[in-house]
């Protein structure tokens, strides 16, 4: 996959959250460096997966990219428009093209609104239709697209199951005809049998409308299934990026290797036979990340250099990028 036609270009994106102390005279005592220099591109029609443990900055990247958090620095260009350096109407224009599907289908729908109001809101905000009638027709069409019956338009979110609510969330995201959708853990709150339904729906919609996805998830099996390329984050920085089969079959970074070896395989013989790298401890605090390579405190093969020098982000094999001192460039 080369950089011929990127729809999304993220460069040196940083997001620091200030940490303050004191109730009235708030003093800034430090920063949580949630995202600390992340750069990647997504091709039109591609699904890029973003994985890592909780606290590694996945969600913050997704939200900052759409301007839901103001970025500390960096740039995000979606279909030619720089979202972080736009103001007013321009932001609105970009938001029409870039939408989000949220993790929690219970918290992300307003319980006092009917499905019609929820799905119709993006159309109202972006003034997509002149009349209510047209908007209603479009809302019905969207519901059918996501596999819900159009006579449910006047119901409220509490009348639906988790999987159905996630479908409503998807319909809302599609309402403004976006080209790019950030899917932030869209299936992790759902039952197994419902997860497959929602994932298949996302794939069908992608085929139908040529959508581009950033798929944020912690379920590495599902990421392998749905994504074309996968980016691994650790404590706000990128550690590895490769095509899915390359990454899952030849992971280079010890963090990626440990993540993959922790995923259970639904086959007792295979699961019990393989060798595991079990990481010790938890992700360190992003308030005060470790020096050098941020992973060195948990890395099974850490060397002296890892504690002081930040490893370079480089292409170790064609289209396979990694930041690790232990990886020598292969042919």
């Amino acid at each position, binding site marked *: 996959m080369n950089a011929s036609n990127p729809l999304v270009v993220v460069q040196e994106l940083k997001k620091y959250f200030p940490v303050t102390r004191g109730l009235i005279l708030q003093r800034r005592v430090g920063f949580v460096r949630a995202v600390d220099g992340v750069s990647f591109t997504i091709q039109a029609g591609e699904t890029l997966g973003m994985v890592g*443990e*909780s606290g590694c900055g996945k969600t913050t990247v997704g939200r900052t990219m759409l301007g839901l958090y103001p970025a500390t620095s960096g740039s995000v260009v979606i279909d030619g428009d720089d979202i972080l350096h736009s103001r007013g109407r321009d932001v609105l224009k970009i938001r029409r093209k870039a939408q989000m599907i949220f993790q929690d289908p219970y918290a992300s729908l307003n319980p006092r609104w009917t499905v019609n109001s929820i799905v119709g809101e993006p159309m109202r905000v972006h003034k997509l239709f002149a009349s209510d009638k047209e908007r209603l027709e479009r809302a019905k069409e969207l519901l059918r697209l996501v596999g819900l019956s159009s006579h449910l338009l006047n119901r409220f979110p509490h009348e639906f*199951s988790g*999987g*159905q609510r996630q479908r409503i969330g998807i319909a809302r995201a599609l309402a403004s005809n976006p080209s790019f959708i950030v899917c932030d853990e869209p299936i992790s709150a759902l*039952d*197994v*049998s*419902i*997860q*497959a*339904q929602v*994932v*298949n729906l996302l*794939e069908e919609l992608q085929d139908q409308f040529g959508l581009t996805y950033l798929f944020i998830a*912690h379920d*590495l*099996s*599902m990421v*392998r*299934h*749905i994504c074309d390329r996968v980016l691994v984050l650790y404590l706000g920085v990128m550690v590895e990026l490769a095509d899915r*089969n390359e990454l*899952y079959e030849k992971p280079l970074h010890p963090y990626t290797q*440990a*993540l*993959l*070896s*922790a*995923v*259970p*395989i*639904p*086959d*007792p*013989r*295979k*699961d*019990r036979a393989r060798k*595991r790298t*079990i*990481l*010790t401890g*938890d992700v360190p605090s992003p308030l005060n990340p470790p020096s050098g390579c941020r992973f060195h405190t948990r890395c099974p093969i850490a060397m002296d250099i890892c504690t002081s020098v930040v490893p370079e982000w480089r292409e170790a094999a064609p289209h396979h990028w990694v930041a690790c001192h232990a990886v020598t460039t292969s042919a």
Partner: protein
Amino acid sequence: MSTSLLQVSDLRTRFQTPEGTVHAVNGISFHINEGETVAVVGESGCGKSVSMMSLLRLIPTPPGEIYAGTAIYRNDDLLKKSEQEMEDIRGKEIAMIFQDPMTSLNPVLTVGRQLTESLRVHLGHTQEQAEKRAVELLEQVGIPDAARRVQDFPHQFSGGMRQRVMIAMALSCAPSLLIADEPTTALDVTIQAQIVELVARLRESLHMAIIWITHDLGVVAGMADRVIVMYAGYIVEEADVQDVYDNPSHPYTLALLGALPRVDRRRDQRLKSIPGAPPNLLVEPRGCPFAPRCEFVIEKCRAENPPLLHVGKNHSSACWVDVKTGVPR
């Protein structure tokens, strides 16, 4: 491994709600041997947690009601015991750990205080003995710097460490049976691997039987001896662990496995999704509860709920159809 520890027969639990009666557990029977690990698998609302809570008599009554069945634990029926007798059993004989350790730990007491409580109550330790033992337990579950950490409050621990504290508490009285209710669901996969390894190690050293409740057929593969699959308050399949993955014999088990992407394989096709949604437990189903979502459904399924039928060695399935051939049994 063959001494039976717990024998449950025809357990039934229901809840009276303003909308009507919820039939949560509809006559399940199973056994567990000493030192054995049994996984109970199913989606939310299938009755897996309610049935285990029923065994420990932790069902709030009303609205809940265990209205039939027996649960013979070492020759005594748990369901006939008084509340006082149950208090001696909970924690001491049968311990339970839960999905979210933050809500099961008391936020205003130090973990040391919470750990020593059961030691004093159940084992009659003095405060001093109990404190010493609490530190040992925290070390046993792999909490670094245990002597200092014992004075910390739950919020000072990470999710994985909190789950370790819960496990230490559950193990404090050396129970013969540990019921683990989705203990790793809220954790990252790296931390899940740590917890699974820890439980496996403790099981060996303490020779403890484990009931592991989960919705994840992946985790089960690595650790269970036997698997029970539940749907709508019924056991629909039961088999030795390898058999479940090699010869799934109930359409629901088959569908669950088909809906699972594999980290170790290249993608070949779309996931097989299960149509429809889990059943509404307010209406008592006529026939097989899975029939509305089942691809093998025949006329008989809608009229009569199949009992658990023997389909192989240690393997039973509640289905009228042989899923391999598609022919009625």
